[in-house]
């Protein structure tokens, strides 16, 4: 297994202080390995973006990190690093692509200026000509002709703007790129093109990606492994195929059956009853229990810990999986590799 780049353990993030604080992220455990695409799935309010902001220390007030650890590589403690150290890490090692590229690019500066601005700030030794050449190279890397450097953001389509954001993030050859819903606002064809480019660049440059998205069906396609969050807690983590073929947490199962398939017989799907909890008043015990059809007494009182399953290849936070309770067949499907006629949708 390749070395881990980012290791998060026991991370808790609150919004606000004291009794009225909202626990946006609770006890997050996450490992991002070199060259890996880790999908972080969850609905709005599940804490997936907050988690990413906490790791990069981009969290804004009233967000507060209240507990836990986050390490970059073997030496850097991300949560205690000073501004100077963070400045050296950000963009150089950890770059971020935000969801709305419309707001992330400065409308009154050409994209060439914005690209070379990054280089000027982080690579002071670089000459003007070298910066310009590198900016052009970066644009071409994401499939935009270099002669577009003089264009302003409003002259580019949404897809191209998002490509510029990716080029900007890659400007300093980071080893980690955090992408927060990078293609959500785009049409499917553009989304697919950008994902293809991203994966090709990943193969070529070897950066790791933390890919945050609400679209689990998309993550199954692009990610190597997937972590699913619900109401601020990590509920399951496994290989992308393992989650898709054999989810172990009822929420993952429900989320997967919320995406109608593109093939096969059309059948009625149930989705997940109810709606996500209000974090100001999160349910006791397992936060998912009010919507869970497999919940039993214990789920209503004790929050489930993250359990290692299948020789430590995956973790799940569900009392059904701790070995003492009956595991419903839906949550005990054979994983990928084993023939599994019950897999959702089946093979085309």
């Amino acid at each position: 297994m390749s070395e881990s780049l980012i290791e998060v353990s026991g991370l808790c993030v609150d919004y606000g202080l004291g009794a009225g604080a909202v626990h946006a992220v609770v006890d997050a455990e996450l490992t991002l390995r070199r060259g890996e695409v880790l999908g972080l799935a969850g609905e709005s309010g599940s804490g997936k973006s907050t988690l990413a902001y906490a790791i990069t220390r981009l969290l804004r007030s009233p967000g507060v990190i209240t507990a836990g650890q986050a390490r970059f590589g073997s030496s850097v403690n991300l949560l205690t690093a000073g501004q100077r150290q963070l400045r050296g890490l950000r963009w150089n090692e950890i770059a971020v692509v935000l969801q709305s590229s419309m707001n992330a690019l400065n409308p009154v500066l050409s994209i060439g200026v914005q690209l070379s601005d990054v280089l000027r700030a982080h690579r002071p030794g670089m000459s003007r000509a070298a910066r310009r050449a590198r900016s052009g190279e970066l644009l071409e890397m994401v499939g935009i002709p270099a002669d577009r450097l003089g264009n302003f953001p409003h002259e580019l389509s949404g897809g191209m703007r998002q490509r510029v954001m990716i080029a900007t993030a890659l400007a300093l050859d980071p080893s980690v790129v955090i992408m927060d819903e990078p293609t959500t606002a785009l049409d499917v064809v553009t989304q697919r093109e950008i994902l293809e480019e991203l994966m090709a660049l990943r193969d070529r440059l070897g950066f790791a990606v933390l890919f945050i998205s609400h679209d689990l069906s998309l993550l199954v396609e692009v990610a190597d492994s997937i972590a699913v969050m619900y109401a601020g807690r990590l509920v399951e983590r496994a290989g992308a195929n393992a989650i898709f073929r054999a989810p172990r947490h009822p929420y993952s199962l429900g989320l997967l059956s919320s995406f109608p398939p593109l093939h096969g017989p059309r059948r009625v799907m149930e989705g997940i009853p109810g709606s996500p909890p209000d974090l100001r008043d999160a349910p006791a015990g397992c936060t998912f229990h009010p919507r869970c059809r497999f919940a039993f007494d214990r789920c209503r009182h004790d929050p489930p810990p993250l359990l290692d399953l299948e020789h430590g290849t995956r973790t799940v936070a569900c009392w059904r999986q701790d070995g003492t309770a009956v595991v419903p067949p839906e949550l005990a499907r054979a994983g990928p590799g084993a023939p599994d006629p019950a897999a959702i949708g089946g093979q085309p």
Partner: protein
Amino acid sequence: MTIIPVDRAGRAGTSGARPVLEARGLTKHFPVRRGARQAMVHAVEDVTLALPDGGITAVVGESGSGKSTLARMLAQLIKPTAGTVLLDGAAAPGRRRYASAVQLVLQDPFSSLNPVHSVRYHLARPLQIHGLNGTGNGHGLDSLVADLLTRVSLTPAEQFAAKYPHELSGGQRQRVAIARALAVQPRVLLADEPVSMLDVSIRLGVLNLLAGLRENEGLTILYVTHDIASARYLADVIAVMYAGEVIESGPAAQVTDQPAHPYTQLLLSAAPDPDRTRPPSLAGRGAPPNLIQPPSGCRFHPRCPHAMQVCAQDRPSAVAVALGHSSACWLHAKDLTSAQSRPLPAAGRGTDSQPAGPDADAAPGPGSGEEKR
């Protein structure tokens, strides 16, 4: 939750049913200023669509394809530049009578409800305006409101009636918006992206609600969406729009399983699909054209991997490829001359669109020449 018969595909043949609402040759051009000159955005061009009684028709397209403009024309919120809307085969009646038959549900339940009014007010208003308040006293109105809330599964109804929009989740708000549309007992519900603003886990609930309304009450539904998988799930018939035109329509499962138009094929290959074992290959990269000067002939021809000479010259008309399944593509036309069917060189494709995405092995498209990897 409403009980729905398991296979909705069986209803795909509703094309035989009498259409309740019909669009005939609907066209909408929006004037825009381009510097000092006035230009026209050709948002919707000559769209003919029939909504069969008790059927669910989906209109699928990307942003800018004209699908919402079409829905708004069908709701008579905007006036078509050309073409007519027929209700029960006759020209649309006056505003209020039309509204009592055809109702629109909008995408964003966060802005379509008035924050200073209670749910009860939102539902009682249309009842009063349309003179449906039963006996005329408040009690009749209350029971009608409760009945509406029960129909959209917001129970206990008395509790929900007293709430304000900010006290409701997105899914609940959208249900209130649907209940409001149902208040006037419409026969047609136009739903413009009703679930795209909602959380993933509650989308199916709202889709199933729409399916249940059709099943139990015979409501005719137009479902406008960008998500072809959800259209396949919900609808009997799918019409695919591209750059303001309907380019393919047919039974939902057939359109998604055997797409006839190259654009539908592209759309399906780009859609997320966890079942896919290897990455899809996209044929026809790039972006939709500028609708101020749409491409001549077929509007998809600058991106189409199969483009022929004729595609750049003449607009293709819908050709039946199977029962109830038609595609507006010259590939399905018979007796093209050899000159017409000659492949179109990439250079000959006049277009205003954005450069296509990179990929050297992709079909030649605008801008693909300068891409490199």
